[in-house]
């Protein structure tokens, strides 16, 4: 059984969604991040996305590692369970949780340090396993919570607050995910909520591992002149290549797109994302093409944003490959799990 908590005071002015819930009811506890931190904007986008999806709070599971970014799971949808794991190990927690109950919506929030340094192995293998979840990296090029060391996503030539210049090649989460065969790869910018919300909604509804790399500047340690992850630099260098509109199941596709420009993709729950190429010269369903395009742009310091690649068959999703029963494993009645005394008696023959 499940339970919808009605808006305590049905405030007439506040718009409600199909569950009769206001945006407020998707909020969490107060953020303790620095004023202006990109992560708070991402939190706002997630709240908007959940409200728009008419998400039942109890259907959502929030997971994270350790870092300023990882703290944000406490700042949205207080009606959902949250699991703040240890540093870099959230993917394994998410994989296990998802194995136990395939019905819920899993959202993992991580940082570039949490995901690309200590957590790289787990991230890569969660992608390989195609765990059905949205994995969102709040990417700021530094370790915020430990006061600004370079992370593995720091670009060559970027300058640290104390002046040090990074010279090691960055790990780009988008290229990484593409090279590993991820079925949903997107990039966003904390400063562009309009673009981010539908990406998050599509990612939540995608059947399989959906990675969104969100450029989310750290105002305290990486927002200065010479940093390639500052607000200014990001604003100047990000380009939407693949605009995505999200259309819920019931709804009609209202906007009418110019002939041939729109690519609608149906998600497993019946909702659709409509992709529109903005200058991008490749087919978003062609992974290799996407890789080549992104990599080429990165060489010129251009961050391509939008829904970069999608493959919606769900063929390799974890439970599909496992042939798991449709009933979540944590709800299968005990008598279907335990073979009982008769079977045991029979089995013992093998060992005599």
């Amino acid at each position, binding site marked *: 059984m499940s339970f919808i908590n009605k808006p305590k005071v049905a405030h007439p002015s506040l718009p409600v969604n199909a569950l009769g819930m206001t945006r407020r009811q998707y909020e969490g506890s107060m953020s303790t991040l620095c004023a202006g931190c990109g992560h708070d904007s991402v939190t706002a986008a997630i709240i908007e996305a959940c409200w728009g999806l008419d998400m039942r709070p109890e259907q959502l599971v929030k997971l994270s590692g350790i870092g300023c970014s990882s703290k944000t799971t406490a700042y949205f949808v207080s009606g959902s369970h949250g699991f703040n*794991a240890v540093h870099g190990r959230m993917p394994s927690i998410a*994989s296990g949780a998802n194995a136990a109950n395939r019905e819920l919506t899993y959202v993992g929030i991580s940082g570039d340090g949490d995901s690309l340094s200590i957590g790289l192995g787990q991230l890569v293998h969660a992608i390989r396993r195609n765990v059905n979840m949205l994995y969102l990296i709040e990417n700021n090029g530094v370790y915020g919570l430990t006061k600004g060391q370079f992370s593995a996503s720091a670009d060559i030539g970027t300058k640290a607050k104390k002046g040090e210049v990074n010279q090691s090649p960055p790990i780009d989460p988008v290229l990484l995910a593409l090279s590993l065969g991820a079925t949903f790869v997107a990039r966003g910018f904390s400063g562009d909520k309009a673009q981010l919300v539908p990406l998050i909604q599509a990612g939540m509804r995608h059947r399989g591992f959906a990675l969104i790399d969100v450029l989310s500047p750290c105002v305290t340690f990486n927002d200065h002149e010479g940093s390639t992850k500052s607000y200014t630099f990001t604003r100047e260098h990000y380009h939407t290549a693949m605009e995505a509109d999200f259309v819920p199941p019931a709804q009609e596709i209202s906007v009418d797109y110019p002939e041939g420009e729109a690519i609608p993709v149906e998600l497993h729950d019946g909702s659709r994302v409509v992709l529109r190429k903005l200058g991008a010269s490749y087919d978003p369903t062609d992974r290799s093409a996407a890789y080549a395009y992104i990599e080429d742009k990165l060489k010129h310091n251009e961050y391509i944003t939008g829904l970069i690649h999608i493959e919606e068959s769900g063929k390799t999703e974890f439970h599909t490959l496992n*042939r798991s029963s449709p009933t979540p494993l944590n709800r299968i009645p005990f008598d279907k799990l335990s073979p009982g005394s008769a079977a045991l008696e029979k089995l013992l023959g093998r060992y005599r």
Partner: protein
Amino acid sequence: MPNLVSAPDRMNDFVLKFANVNGTGSASANSLIMKAIFRMGVPVTGKNYFPSNIQGLPTWYEIRVTRDAYAARAGRVDILVAMNSETYSKDVREVASGGYLIYDSTWPRSALLQRGDITVIGVPLAQLVNEEFDGVRNRILLKNIAYAGVIAALIDVDLEVIDGLMRESFGKKPKLLDSNTRALRLGYDYAMRHLQCPLPLRVQRMDKTRGHIMIDGNTAAGLGCVYAGATVGAWYPITPSTSLMDAFKGFCERYRVDPGTGERNFAVIQAEDELAAIGMVLGASWNGARAFTPTSGPGISLMNEFLGLAYYAEVPCVIFDVQRVGPSTGMPTRTQQADIMLCAYASHGDTRHVLLFPANPEECFYMAVKAFDLAERLQTPVFVMSDLDIGMNDWMCRDLKWDDAYRPDRGKILSAGELADLDKFYRYVDRDDDAITYRTLPGVNPKGAYFTRGSGHNQYGAYTEDSAEYQTVLDRLKRKFSTAARYVPKPEIVGKGDGKIGIVSIGSCDGAVREAIDVLARQKVEVDYMRIKAFPFGHDVESFLSLHATIFVVEQNRDAQLRSLLTLETSVDKSKLKSILSYSGFPMSCDPIVDGIRATLPDAPRLSAVTGKSTR
């Protein structure tokens, strides 16, 4: 030929050892013999000493025929089948005086003629097999069956029984059945014709194995997980724990797959490493599935950080530590009990964990089930401390029984209804004064939502850096451990329990201890015995310790880790605790125990040379 033992003496009471090269398929021949003896109603144990390698290195298989049903390694060899030229000389030395050595006389072995006190029997096995069969691989495999035939004749194993076993294994493959049967006869007939059969060391039907099975601990534990209703298993392969997950998977494919749809009621995840494996188990348990991971020492070391999270955030999980020889990579195919301290206190900060100590495969089955009940009841990690000897060797155990009335103890999980009735849910408030608090599962009711974290939290589940709030939770966790002491299995006590000398031990030492007790009894030395089954230690452990003036702690590690745990976690005066340690990597025999205890007795002539080494 010299024969220092008189027949009736050693009937159904001797040790047969096979020296082979690994990767040559000798295992099936060896277990054929063991199984046959078992089916003749005669108790046996089988111990496999294999290298950490896949092919070409020496490997040994030891069958102890033991009419008294002793489970321990005998510590002597009566009949040695020397099939590995590399180890001939070493093997020859190992045979007890008056024993027998069988070798392949296709090639002359002058090295074997060194000893006059044993009987050396040559059989031209290669020659016989090569004349009868072709194909290199085929000949290698069948040569094993051939020597099995020779042994069958020498120790008088019932051919009918062996045929039955072979029909069962090759039933569907008539060609194989035929060649194997022929190979067996080849050896059997040769022995009957050319050797004095049977030897005085031989098998005679008894009725002591009825109601028993031969099984290894990993198989039993895997089966236990199926019966306990575990649905998620995550692991990373590591010897000697790998076969536990193989077993679980195998049983699930048999019992957990819908015949119609092929849908599976389980998920086995091969993780990328042990850090991920334990993470998956935590995620699944937190989300309401029964989940577990099998591993060994190196895996436990890698799980340390997550184990601290599980302790502090109170997430149930079950870990099987099939211990091997440490430190570090150590000797992966040898046995030890050296992870006790690590598992009891794993992770940084103030932590403590629940441990179960199975003594044999039978207990692996029952304790696997118990482990899940305890983990969910106590909301904390529970370790099943098995080892390579229990996990990978074949033990004779009583039939496993299952009570269909059993229902899992899921502990304090609030249902949707209970949540609806609550006006507010707090994760870490001690409502029942047993230091165990209520948890909720995702997907049930938004009122049950809470935030699980390894960072400082108060009893309401909120983040805190406040000393008092932090201590409230930490102090309750300490009290929870006292609650745990009431839930875990009580020790098994043998003897009046108040004699002067007491032995305290755990796990796979049990067989050796029981045998030592018999040996000592025959020498008029009386000792009581307490086998500890779990940590934390309860009242019974305390009282046994206080009732005995001298206590010998028997364990398989260098640093007396069980003794350390007793010293720290009971009120015993440690000067009372004497250590008897065995950390050679081989399963324990009764000798060091007998010697160790006798050495402390006033009138102690070291008798073990006679007593210990004799199996009776």
